């Protein structure tokens, strides 16, 4: 959901920039970068789905390849859609992205650790 950037309602005469969440989308050129990012995301997801559905690789290889695809996908999301490379307003960018990486990696890492039990029992 893209909210339009309007005059900040709080501080008369002083506009607050929130580039991360209220990006300027009024640029007239064709959004080629965004469409390329969208198609690339679909292709990466398709590859991962294909590898798992077809059992194309042994388990350890599969895990490694899927994780690499996931990192690529995350990089595309952050770079193309989340405006990571736009400069202003970095005060909150870095801690929040850091927190996001920490929680994301934590969830994936812990889940692998927790669910490894299956290789021992089944």
């Amino acid at each position, binding site marked *: *959901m*893209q*909210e*339009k950037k*309007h*005059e*900040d*309602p*709080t*501080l*008369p005469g002083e506009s*607050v920039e*929130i580039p991360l*969440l*209220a990006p300027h989308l009024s640029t007239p050129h064709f959004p080629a970068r965004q469409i390329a990012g969208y198609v690339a995301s679909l292709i990466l997801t398709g590859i991962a789905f294909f590898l798992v559905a077809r059992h194309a690789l042994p388990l350890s290889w599969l895990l490694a390849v899927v994780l690499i695809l996931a990192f690529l996908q995350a990089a595309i999301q952050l770079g193309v859609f989340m405006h990571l490379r736009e400069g202003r307003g970095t005060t*909150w960018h870095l801690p929040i992205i850091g*927190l*996001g990486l920490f*929680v994301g990696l*934590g*969830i994936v890492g*812990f*889940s692998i*650790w*927790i*669910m*490894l*039990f*299956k290789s*021992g*029992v089944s």
Partner: protein
Amino acid sequence: MRPWFIHLIKLLFPPQVLLPDIVGIDIGLTLSALAIALYLTKARRWGWLWREWLTTVDHKRIGIMYIIAALIMLFRGGVDALMIRSQLIVPEAHFMGAQQYDEVFTTHGTVMIFFMAMPFFFGLFNVAVPLMIGARDVAFPRLNAISFWLFAFGAALFNISFSIGGSPSAGWFSYPPYSELQFNPGVGENYYLLALQVSGIGSIATGINFLVTILKLRAPGMTLMKMPLFVWSALVTSTLILFAFPPLTVALGLTMLDRLFGASFFTLAHEGMPMMYANLFWIFGHPEVYILIMPAFGIFSEVVPTFSRKPLFGYEAMVISLLAITFLSYGVWVHHFFEMGAGPGVNVFFGLSTMLIAIPTGVKMFNWLFTMWGGRIRLSVPMLWQLGFIPTFVVGGASGVMLAAVAADYQYHNSYFVIAHFHNVIVGGTVFGLLSGMYYWWPKMFGWKLNERQGRWAFAFFFTGFWLTFMPQYFLGLEGMTRRMASYPPGLGWGGLNAMSTIGAFIMGVGFAILVYNIAWSRMHPEWDTTGDPWDGRTLEWSLPSPAPAYNFARIPEVHERDAWWAMKQRGETDAVKLSPDQVEPIHVPKNTPMPICLAVSFFVGSIGMVFAWHWMAILGGLGVVAALAYGSLEDDTDRELDPTTVLNTEKRLGRVHP
């Protein structure tokens, strides 16, 4: 009759929705809906409803709508609870069949968590947070309305399941393989998946909205460490929502693929892994319980100083505790399924991390007690709920530490001990907190106070009923009664404790009835709040008239210390909030828009299509969503300007202009 028609009727009205009680409720609800529609038509109120409420983007009105919806859902979840307790009052009772019992406890849990507690504190955030930080609205007012309507239509979707198509019956966390098509072939589970998905989008948006609002729209001078603690709790809750809801979205989405499109992520067949659902669900689910309790912590941190006439003891320690709980709550989720057998390493790690959370929570408890220590305590209704909260939550927290001990948890797991524990913290913490906040901010919302005497009676009944309901359940758990039993045989020594528990539940029901009476009576005999500061409050929202004008602050206040309004009163500078005629500036306010409700209706239509696997309808709903989003993106005329004369006149009427 045509065969497709008969098929449709059988799909919409399977035997489980044709029970006499459900048909009775259907008729009652239809009649009341007709009566309301008739009243609105006769009183010519449809236009008013549309202009003032359904299309509004004002955070104060959205907050009020959230709270009304939450109270209705509290009624619905409460009736479910009374049905559960009526079934269990004696051994081998036949108040309901086992299928209906499963549906009722599933609905009770889901409604209370997702459609009562969450919208209730979203409502209080909306009402209080912008006023507390000196803002004119939230950062994204339109997104705020979208959040509300997605919640409202998600809740509606979930609530119609019992009369059309059948309710979900796999519990509030809906574990596979039981929630999979093989064992649960009706449409009930689809309702659960879609309703939570739709309202979940709204919750994530609310999280983002308040995160940005609090980080970006504070009044000049209000640094992070000068914010009221309720704002801090809104900040950490929003962070938790932002990181906790996506795993739920994934878990529900994959289950939907399993059920509707023949995938096998969590099935028993084709190497699906049902426990992966449990893992994903509780990555969401444990932060979720902190999402529920943090706002209550925030409310109590406002109520205690106000009604003790003392600044909060240990502000920094309170903030650090909130942050510590937020951080730790992401590392505890396996304690919901120690019995999966992930191994001693995993279980000990998560057991210890769970116990660690007791430390910052204990710090908060002592800080509230030290705030009261030596204070001039007034026993108004918000303060009563706070005083009831302390012993209740301590018992719940202590039993939580017991559950965190892995070896012991193998005994407690899935028993009534767990039921008693989490009701102790969720009712004793969250619900007490939300009701305290409701009484506290009610005058700010409506301009009149709730009657104190009736409020005390509501508290007395609710509190007594609570202890009578849930203390016996600890012992039932220790005696071996497992949760979700539709009935139990005699001769196990469970009868007396269950009867006590049921009586307690009905006493709580009386408490809720008094609360509703309290609201209705106080509406009819309003005790107007003319000062805007009925409790002698400490934070900025009490510097405004009750209810606040649409733009909140004609002049944004400057903040120099914590409890800014209290400091102004101490220094006799309360006139600083008043306006001089030469200071008036035009104010930008967002325009009302029908886009949020249209978006939510489209989601609703599409979800019905998904629930019944009518693909044409799902596509229709999807197109509606795209159309609403496109309309919202391309529309230019989103805000208007209030000219200085209007502002000045409004402020004059409120007596807030320097002569």
